[in-house]
């Protein structure tokens, strides 16, 4: 075959393919809802194949909804690797505390993530609230020291003067209970902390059936075993609540701590105010 012949042959094949494609499109369009009018001779009425309507999907996919964020959202992060906490977001800045991956109770250590910044080298730093003395310590750790993030919309407030604990969810009070707090000699520390673990099924009536560990530490019992952390727990002396009765911990009656446990997620910020 000559070059011209080959060209003509290819052209014919291309025209045939386009024609077949047009027919298919027309056939498909004729079968669709709200489609253009079928091309004469191409639709089912003209004896072409009858295509079944599409199957109804097995899923009801809802309309996408925007992410609901709120000013009450707080982010916590697991501590993945031991790391120094620095006063500024740069290597070489003053070390103000140190973080480890475990709490004295053997649970994963967590911190509240407050802010983030990228340094001149492009490394990420996260500002975190840490369980250290003095109260309200916040500093910077490299992002690699932290694991995944969690988000809570709850906030716990302990009012020492009212001897009352209140749990807020999305800004609304959802739980209130009277509490026992530290004596004048061993006061409950004031400031901003967070709830970092939950202990249960231990056998010690003094702490009641449940105890929450917090990042708050006693400023007077600094040599207490395991670092003198302040807990929120039950009691075997409910008659002393409310009152100034503890070594700094926040004590609730047992029925109250059990109810609180159903509502309080780990990572919830805690504010103790005078």
């Amino acid at each position, binding site marked *: 075959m000559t070059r011209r012949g080959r060209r003509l042959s290819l052209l014919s094949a291309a025209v045939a393919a386009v024609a077949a494609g047009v027919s298919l499109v027309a056939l498909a369009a004729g079968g669709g809802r709200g489609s253009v009018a079928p091309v004469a001779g191409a639709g089912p009425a003209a004896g072409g194949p009858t295509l079944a309507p599409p*199957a*109804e*999907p*097995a*899923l*009801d*996919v*809802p309309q*996408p*909804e*925007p*992410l609901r*964020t709120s000013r009450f*959202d707080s*982010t916590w992060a*697991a501590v*993945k690797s031991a790391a120094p906490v620095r006063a500024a977001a740069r290597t070489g800045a003053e070390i103000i505390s140190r973080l480890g991956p475990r709490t*004295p*109770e*053997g*649970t*994963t250590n*967590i911190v509240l993530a407050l802010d*983030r910044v990228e340094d001149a080298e*492009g490394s*990420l730093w996260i500002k975190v609230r840490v369980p250290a003395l003095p109260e309200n310590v916040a500093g910077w750790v490299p*992002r*690699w020291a932290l*694991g*995944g*993030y*969690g*988000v809570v919309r709850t906030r716990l407030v302990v009012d020492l003067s009212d001897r009352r604990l209140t749990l807020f969810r999305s800004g609304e009070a959802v739980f209130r209970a009277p509490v026992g707090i*530290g004596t004048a000699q*061993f006061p409950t520390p004031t400031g901003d902390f967070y709830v*970092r*673990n*939950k*202990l*249960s*099924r*231990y*056998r*010690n009536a*003094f*702490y009641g059936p449940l*105890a929450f*560990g917090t990042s708050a530490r006693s400023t007077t*019992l600094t040599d*207490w*075993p*395991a670092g*003198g*952390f*302040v*807990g929120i*727990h039950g009691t075997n002396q409910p008659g002393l609540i409310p009152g100034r009765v503890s*070594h*700094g911990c926040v004590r609730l009656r047992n029925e109250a701590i059990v109810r609180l446990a159903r509502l309080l997620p*780990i990572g919830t910020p805690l504010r103790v105010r005078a």
Partner: protein
Amino acid sequence: MSLSDFTDLRLADLDRDGALREAADNLERTSRAGFFAAAAGGMAAAVALGRPQAAGAALAKSDVAILNYALTLEYLQDAFYTEAQRKGALSGAAARLARVVGAVERAHVKALRDTLGKQAVKRPFFDFRGVTEAPERFTRTAVAFEDLGTAAYKGQAHRIKSPQVLAAAVAIHSVEARHAAWIRYIAGVLPAVEPFDEPKSAKETLQLVRTTRFVVGRPRTRSRRRPRFTG
């Protein structure tokens, strides 16, 4: 493009919640079960699902496994875009994509969970290791995620027994493909240069996800240890 091109990956098996393992095992088990059921001439392993308008309100176990596999991947995408949006480190087109695609992936998760009901796999815990907070790494990882999601849906199409599940999977698949094209455009990568898209098997897909180390064990925040608080 693959995930390993974009993230600082190491082949580590940090699937401590077992979410990926569970998805892979279910698919493998139902593959074998499906074969034996077919050989016996029946679909005895049908289970009822919550959606009455689904065909006969019943789906084969293998379809449940495939939906759970899809749910696992949707959890990953949902968490990725949602965290990116929460962290607020993105701007411009990437931020818009995270906002729009994140909402769509959350809708996919809801649909799959509603359909699977109690049979839905648990949401794993994720550690994106800063990728959601660094625009460049976010964009490149999103390209890989969307390509992977599209290939993963395609890889299961031939195994789906119910026409209704297939219709749903195809409907989601094309949306994932649009996401892939969109993020590729943002990343400056041509959206469609290959004439034929290759599917990915569940094994390949889950292995790739595993290598990212984005799926991690849930932090252990409960203990039975005796408290040593100040009291």
